[in-house]
C-alpha cells in the first residue's frame, strides 16, 4: 500500500492502452486484465505512480495493455527489476505479472527471495499449469504424468504447490482466485494493494489452446460450488451448492464433513487470515483429491517491509554519521602535500 493518493477521478478507460490485445480469444488473461482495469480507478493511486513489470510468457504481455508505466523484462527476473524500481522510488505502486513457468521455474529463486524480503510489491501469478507462449510444454505446476510436447511419455515431475512455496518463503500475504471469478478477483487485487509488503496472488487461469479445462471444476457453474471453498476471515469454512458441507480440523488433519448429518457450523474451522499454521493446512489442500480448493486470502500479516527498513536505515545513518561529506571521504585519514 502507498500513502500517495490522487484527487483525479480515473475511469476504466484511463487504464486501457492503445495496443491491440493479442491473447487468444477466450484466454483467461482477458478477465484478469479487465478486472484490473475496473479495480484500479477505485484505488485512487495517481496513474503515473503505477508500474507493471512482467517477465516472459503470455501473461507477461500484460503491461502493454495497461496504460501505465510498464516494463516487459526477461524470463523469471521480473521480481528483481520490480525490487529495484520500488527501492529506487518507494512511492510507486509496483505490480509484477508473472506465470507458473516464469515465477516457479526459471524465476523460482527470485520469487522466494522477493517474498522473504517482503518488499512492498504485488505479485500476480497467472497459473495455467502449462507453458503457453512456447506452445505447450509442461510447467512446474503441471500434474505428474502430463503428456505435452516435451513430455510425450508423461512428465516425471511432481508439481509445485504455489501457496505452500509462498508460505515456505515467509510470505506475508498469500491469496488465490480464479480468472472467472470477476468480483472475487477485483477484491483480491484490492487486498493486495492494501497489504504492506509483498502480496502474492495466484490466479488460476485457463489456457484454452494448450491446457483447456484445467480448472473447469472451479469454473463450471454446475459443479464449482462443491469444489471451491471461499475463505472469509472470521467466517466458518462452509461450501457446497446447498452450503451443506464444511471443513473441520481434527488435531492438524483437515476433514470435509456434512452439515446435514452429524456436524453443525460450530464444529467447523473459522478462517483466521493471521494463522500461519492454518494457512499451511489450507495450502496443502491444493492437490488433495477429496477436498475443495480454497480461494481468497489464505494468510496475511503485517511485517516490516524491506523498503521501509532501507529508508529508515538511511535516515538513521544520516542522523548518526551526519550527512555525507564527500571531500572528507575522498581525502580519507592520511593525506600529504606535494609543493
Amino acid at each position: 500500500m502507498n500513502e500517495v493518493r490522487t484527487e483525479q477521478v480515473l475511469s476504466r478507460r484511463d487504464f486501457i492502452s492503445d495496443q491491440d490485445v493479442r491473447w487468444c480469444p477466450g484466454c483467461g488473461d482477458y478477465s484478469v486484465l479487465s478486472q484490473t482495469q475496473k479495480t484500479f480507478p477505485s484505488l485512487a493511486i495517481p496513474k503515473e505512480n503505477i508500474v507493471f513489470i512482467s517477465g516472459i510468457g503470455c501473461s507477461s504481455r500484460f503491461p502493454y495493455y495497461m496504460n501505465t508505466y510498464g516494463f516487459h523484462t526477461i524470463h523469471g527476473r521480473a521480481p528483481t527489476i520490480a525490487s529495484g524500481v520500488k527501492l529506487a522510488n518507494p512511492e510507486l505502486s509496483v505490480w509484477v505479472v508473472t506465470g507458473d513457468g516464469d515465477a516457479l521455474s526459471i524465476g523460482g529463486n527470485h520469487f522466494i527471495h522477493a517474498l522473504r524480503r517482503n518488499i512492498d510489491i504485488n505479485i500476480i501469478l497467472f497459473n495455467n499449469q502449462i507453458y503457453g507462449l512456447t506452445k505447450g510444454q509442461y510447467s512446474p505446476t503441471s500434474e505428474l504424468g502430463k503428456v505435452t510436447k516435451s513430455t510425450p511419455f508423461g512428465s516425471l515431475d511432481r508439481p509445485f504447490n504455489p501457496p505452500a512455496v509462498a508460505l515456505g518463503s515467509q510470505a506475508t500475504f498469500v491469496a488465490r482466485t480464479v480468472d472467472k471469478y470477476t468480483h472475487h478477483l477485483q477484491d483480491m487485487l484490492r487486498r493486495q494493494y492494501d497489504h504492506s509488503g509483498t502480496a502474492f496472488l495466484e490466479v488460476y487461469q485457463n489456457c484454452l489452446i494448450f491446457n483447456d479445462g484445467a480448472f473447469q471444476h472451479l469454473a463450471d457453474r454446475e459443479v464449482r460450488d462443491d469444489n471451491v471453498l471461499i475463505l472469509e476471515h472470521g467466517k466458518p469454512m462452509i461450501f457446497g451448492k446447498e452450503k451443506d458441507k464444511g471443513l473441520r480440523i481434527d488435531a492438524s488433519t483437515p476433514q470435509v464433513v456434512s452439515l446435514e448429518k452429524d456436524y453443525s457450523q460450530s464444529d467447523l474451522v473459522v478462517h483466521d487470515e493471521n494463522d500461519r499454521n492454518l494457512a499451511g493446512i489450507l495450502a496443502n489442500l491444493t492437490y488433495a483429491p477429496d477436498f475443495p480448493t480454497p480461494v481468497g486470502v489464505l494468510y496475511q500479516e503485517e511485517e516490516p517491509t524491506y523498503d521501509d527498513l532501507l529508508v529508515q536505515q538511511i535516515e538513521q545513518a544520516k542522523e548518526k554519521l551526519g550527512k555525507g561529506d564527500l571531500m572528507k571521504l575522498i581525502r580519507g585519514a592520511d593525506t600529504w602535500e606535494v609543493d
Partner: protein
Amino acid sequence: MPTKDVESLESVVIRFAGDSGDGMQLTGDRFTSTAALVGNDLVTFPDFPAEIRAPAGSLAGVSAFQIQFSSKDIFTPGDQVDVLVVMNPAALKVHLGDLRPGGTIIANESSFTTKNLRMAGWESNPLEDDTAAEYRLYNIEISRLVANAVEAIGLPGKSVERTKNMFALGLLYWMYGRPIEPTADWLKEKFKSRPELVEANTRALKAGHNFGDISELFATSYQVDPAPLAPGTYRNITGNYALGLGLLTASQKGDIPLFMGGYPITPASDILHQLSYYKNFGVKSFQAEDEIAGIGAAVGAAFAGNLAVTPSSGPGIALKGEAIGLAVITELPLVVISIQRAGPSTGMPTKTEQADLFQAMFGRNSESPLPVLAPATPGECFSIAYEACRVALKYMTPVFVLSDAFLASGAEPWRIPELDKLPPIDFEYEKGGNGPFQPYRRDQETLARAWAIPGTPQLEHRIGGLEKENLTGNVSYDADNHDLMVRQREQKVAGMVREIPPTEVYGDTTGDVLVLGWGSTFGAIRTAVEKLRREKLSVSHAHIRWINPLPPDLGEILLKYQKVLIPEVNLGQLLRLVRAEYLVDAEGLNLVRGRPFRESHIVDKIREIL
C-alpha cells in the same frame, strides 16, 4: 650521531611473505602508508592466497605483499625483489625465485623448525645450507625477540607471535630511514579498545627498529628520497576503493541517487562493501540473491531514475549477460563493472588477468553494442568510474568498466581531484509538454532517448526486451524497422568517439615500435619503454582507456610505426580488435600466468622484434 653508513638508493622493491595468519597484508599496508608520507612514489602488488585459511605453514597458505618505492616516478611494483622478508620456510620456498642475485633475505629464524621445513618441502634448513649462498641472508630470531620485548605485558603466546610482523616492520623502517610514529599512531587507533595490544605491538615495532640500529648485523641503512610528484594533495589509494569513490562522486556531482545491485564475488566484493557504507550519502546498496538479481534490481532502479551500478567479475558477468542485453535495448543508464580475474570458469579468483575484453564486447546475444572503458592504474579507477557514469547518463546506455585484480588491490599515491574541475554530469528527466510522448525519439546529436521516469504524469509508456518500433517504442517485428534499430544502437555507441580525448603517445610520433596497451599493463609497458628510450631505441607507448569505440585517431597513429606490439594478459583480444579494425599487422605479447607483466618480459620482446 649515526655511526653507520647511510646509502642513497633510487628505488627499492620489498616483498613481505608469510603464512596467511602472519599479517603480511597489514604489514605491507603500513609500510606503504609510511612510504607515501615520506613522499616516495610507490606501486604495490598484494598477492593473496585463494583459500581462506590453508593449513598453517603450508605452501598454499603463503600470503605476500610487494611494494616498490622510489625517488622517481615509477609504474610497476618491480620485476625483481631487492629485499625478501620471510616469516616462515614456506614463504621462502615460494618466493626465493623472485629475489634478485645479491638481494637481501630477512628470515624469521624461529619459525624454521623441522616441522615447518618439512611442510614447506625443504630437505635441509636453507638458512644453514648453501641455498642462500648468492644472497645476503639475515637470520633473526624474531619470535624470540618479540617474546622478550613484550614479556612484561603478560599476553598469551598466540598474541605475542602475532606481533612479529611489527618487529619486521620496525626493522625495515630503520633500514630505509622511515619514521615509526605514523605506525605507532595507527596502532593506538586500531587497538584502542585493547590497550595491551597497542603496547605489545608498539614494543615489537620499536624492538625491530632498535635491532636494526644496534645489532651488528646491519652495517648500512638506506634512504630513498621523495619523488617529484605534481603539486597537490595526495593520498594512497587502491583501485577498487578509487572506483567506489568515483561512482559516489558522480552521483553527488550529478545530484542523482546512486543504486548498487550486487553479489559477493572475488575480487569485486570490496565495492559491494564500500558502497553499503555510504548510507549517509543516501546510497542504496542491495546485496541480491544472485548476480542476475543484482543487475535486475539495478536495471529497475535505472528505469525509476537512479544512477545504477552493478559490480562483479568474469563468472558473474557471464550470468548477467541477458540482463545487460535488456539494458542495451531499453537504453537505460547502468554501469557494469568487471574486476577481471583469471579464468575460465572459476579459474584463479585472486589472480589477475585481462581476458574478459571479448566478454565485455560480445558476451550477449545478437548485436548488443555498448561502450567499454578500462582504467590503467589504481588512481585512474576513480576517473574512469566517474566517466562511465557521465557517459551512461548522457547517452542512456549501459557502460562497461574493465578493471582487474591487480588494479583492484594495488595501491599508489593519488592526487586528490578538485571536485569543481571534474566534468559536469549532465542529464535530465523528461518532463513532457512537447506533444505526444515518443519513448524512442532520439536526441539529434547523442541519439539518446528521453528518460521519462515512473511518477511523471502524462508520460506513461511501456518498454521491454522485444524489438521496438522507431520513435514510438511499440513492439515491432517489421523487417526494415529491425535493421534500422540495430544500426541506430550501433551508431549511438560509434558516436561516442566525440567523448574521447586525443590519444597521448609517450615517445615519438613515429618510429620503429609502438607498444599499445590497455588496462593494468600500463605500468610494465611504460617502465619498459622508458628504459629502452634511455638506450636511444625508437620505441613509443600508447595506452587506450576507451576500447569501444576505439579512439578515432588510433588508426592513423598505428600507421606511423614499423611495428605495433600489444602486450596483454590474455591470448590476444585487443590485438584481434585492432587487427580487424585497422588491417594493421599488429603483434601480441601474451602471457596468461595470473600475474602482471614484468618489465623484463616486455623489454625482451621489444628487443626481439626491433
